[in-house]
């Protein structure tokens, strides 16, 4: 019966005593906290860790890939076959912005060697922050100027073109089967309430569409906004994620909408009743590759970039992802537009990125959203 008596009758602990306890507690907490933090989860996860974090043979590179999963497997298998001796640890995430952010977050101790896929703008931000290794591949000479970084931090290797997706049965039934050929065709009142549009504020694709209109009118923003306003009258809804736009058209929720050509073809290949309409004067993204500075195996990352810029790798990417290769002489995917056949607008990616906030705000006030 000692304890309750202390609690009830003895005077409060002296200040010194309290502080002593507190000090001991905090000291133990620091040690105990660390132990407690790792103890519970450690046994269960130990096996997987040995496989991933432990330093492997010097010939392994870690690749952060924003390419589609269907592309990844075959693409990296081909690399391993072509360049024996270098193994690939793949971190697949088809979201270039998330990978870019991850590289920034990991800059204290980089875990990746290669960042592959995603528009040049994602790579450019990293290059400007000093997080990329300067590397100009001997094979980069064949890539047209304007599609590679003048500072040598990233190299473009494919182009994704913005086009138009339509639901084949609804287009036949409601639009007489007439697919659009120019952006102006979308102003036809017959399209009213039938278009699903990726939001220019929240999607990269939607913004490419907006900037495309500005470039189409030679940066006459008044004319571009006039177009966007008329176009807005025909839009049924805006959507916060470009792939969802394609999915909704595939489901038949809407008749059609502007979207990425390669994604349209990929969805079509899954058996969806949709097709692609190539539009004149369209915008595009430049899919790029870069080497992360201070990664685990920079030396082995360079042969990878060299391989990626070969004709074989370019052709394989076209076959797997329906994108357009920037390596000269690589034939396009069936049904896909090519740089020769599609009329591209004079798209200035750097200017578009610099004016993004201003243009989206201008657009918002114009259409009243």
């Amino acid at each position, binding site marked *: *019966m000692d304890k309750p008596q202390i*609690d*009830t009758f003895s005077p*409060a602990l002296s200040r010194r005593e309290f502080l002593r*306890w*507190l000090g*001991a*507690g905090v000291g*133990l907490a620091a040690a105990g*906290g660390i132990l407690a*933090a*790792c103890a519970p*989860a*450690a046994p*269960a*996860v*130990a096996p*997987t*860790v040995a496989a*991933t*974090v432990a330093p492997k043979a010097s010939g392994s590179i870690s690749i952060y890939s924003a390419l*589609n*999963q269907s592309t990844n497997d075959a693409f990296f298998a081909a690399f391993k076959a072509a360049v024996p001796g270098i193994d690939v*640890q*793949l*971190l697949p*995430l*088809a*979201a*270039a*912005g*998330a990978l870019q*952010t*991850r590289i920034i*977050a*990991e800059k*204290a*101790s980089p*875990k990746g060697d290669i960042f592959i896929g995603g528009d040049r*703008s994602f790579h450019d*931000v990293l290059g400007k922050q000093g997080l990329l290794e300067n590397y100009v591949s001997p094979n980069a000479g064949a890539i047209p100027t304007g599609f590679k970084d003048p500072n040598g931090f990233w190299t473009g290797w494919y182009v994704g073109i913005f086009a138009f997706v339509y639901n084949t049965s609804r287009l036949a039934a409601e639009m007489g089967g007439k697919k659009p050929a120019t952006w102006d065709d979308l102003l036809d009142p017959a399209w009213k309430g039938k278009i699903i549009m990726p*939001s220019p504020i*929240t999607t990269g694709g939607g*913004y490419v569409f907006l900037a495309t209109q500005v470039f189409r009118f030679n940066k006459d923003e008044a004319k571009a906004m006039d177009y966007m306003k008329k176009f807005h009258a025909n839009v*049924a809804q*805006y959507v*916060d*994620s470009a792939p*969802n736009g394609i*999915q909704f058209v*595939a489901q*038949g*929720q809407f008749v059609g909408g502007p979207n990425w050509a390669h994604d349209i073809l*990929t969805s079509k290949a*899954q*058996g*969806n*009743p949709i097709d692609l309409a190539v539009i004149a004067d369209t915008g595009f993204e430049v899919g790029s590759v870069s080497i992360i500075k201070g990664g685990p195996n920079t030396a082995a990352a360079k042969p990878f970039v060299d391989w990626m810029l070969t004709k074989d790798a370019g052709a394989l990417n076209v076959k797997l992802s329906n994108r357009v290769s920037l390596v000269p002489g690589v034939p396009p995917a069936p049904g896909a537009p090519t740089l020769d056949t599609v009329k591209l607008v004079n798209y200035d990616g750097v200017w578009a990125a610099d004016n993004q*906030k201003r243009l989206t705000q201008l657009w918002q006030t114009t259409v009243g*959203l």
Partner: protein
Amino acid sequence: MRSISREPTVVLVLAVLVGLMVMFIIYPQVQVVIVPGLDGYFSFLGGQTWIKPLFNSIQIMLASTTTAVTLGFVYAYSMVYSEMPWKPFFRIVGILPLLSPPFVVAVSYILLFGPRGVISYGVFGQSPLILGFYGLWGVQTIAFFPFAYQLIADVLARNDPRLEQAARNLGAGTWNVFRTITLPLARPGLAAAILTTAIYILEDFGNPLLIAGQFTVLPSQAYSLIEGFGDFTGAAAVSTILLVLALVLYVAKLRIEGNRSYVTISGKATSIPRPPVPRALTAACFIACSILAVFILMVYGVLIVSALTVAFPNNLALTSKNFEYLGSHSQSLINTLKFGGIAAIICALFALLLAFLVQRKEWWGRQAVDFMAIMPAAVPGLFFGIGYATAFNQHIFDWIDRGMLITLSMIFWNIPVGYQAAIAGLQQIDRSLDEAATSLGASSLRGFRDILFPLLRSALLTGFVTAFVRAVTTLSVVIFLFTPGTTLATITIFQLVTDFDWGGATAFTVSVIGMAVIVLSGVYFISGRRAGLQRTAGG
């Protein structure tokens, strides 16, 4: 109430818990908050692109919280008070909406109720433009009512039947008992439910991304700043705005709770059954819950049908090819169950112990720790993950492996619900119970273990269940943390969605949900049996 300075063990335990929270909640979050820098904040706030999303966020939060909490209350009342049949079935169905991996479940709403939806167009011939405020309101109501349901059900289950019996004996009708006894006693649960539901709706980005259309809210703005434009700085600023909003909500909750006593469990034996509710009310409860259940099952039914057909809704031929992917990617499914399971157990225990120390002990800084335990709910998963990637991807933390880090992120991200449930529960339990134990010589931690822990079993269960389902279905927290060997089911689902492989994505989703339901049914079954045994032993 005793000061804890006389109990070194308690001080020690508290110091460990707070130390862990500082390390795994505050420290990573600071990494995100400091990203924009002062200039970044000024230029972002000056740009004013956040004002409209802010108003949208508040608007959807107010509307959805109101409907979700109302629905949650009805569901909880039916489960606890009425004598409707099929309660175990309704219990699982009531958890299902929490089991929605992003990018997949929301699609089935559009398949059902979109402009060419199976129900909206197929049955009613209407083409509603559901992207926008109303669509989002509906989806968020269904998606988040389970939080409210669980928190309120915990509290209702602990209401002392004697108070209600006494009121009935004095002549009060069912409605009067409900209005003057049941509802006021449920106030701690209601306050907890309103706060957590509101904060979770505020930070959700998965559903808005899919169904909000042009009605952009703050989390979807933050996501698109990162994913569309690589603007990490702006996104971090948006995340900070969300934290400030959460703080405001927290202060508001303290107001709602007030200083009343909600004690209903005292030292005396309570073996009296609840006063029976009228048959008509039981029937009404059954009908209301059934309607909701049909609705929920329809949404998940679409997933099952999609998983079993070639291309829903265009080609309904049966196939098993969608499940092929499962074999080659079973590792991600196993990782998910393993990390999620471990995290949920630790999270539930941690939350309960913390709630005990906050609610039962008096010490300086209590309120700050109280807020710390709620804060993770306000941090969009994306930023919780970014914070972890930044904070722990340093050479000095190389000993924390990735599986452990992912588990830790799941533990600390999911503390709020279990913690809120435990706090609300403790508010109902008379201090004289645990004080009796301590005055008989037990240490206060022993009192917690032997007296309060058994009484708070349902709160523990709530903590486990929500932590588990959220850990299993989170994408945003883990996309910055996973490595090739620690990949998770949601990552696989995301990859399938971006490949437009709707069949494969639904097959994988159905498998994840199926496994989670099996685990939860097992947990409910065991805890139900144990509760039954204890009742028999006690009575």
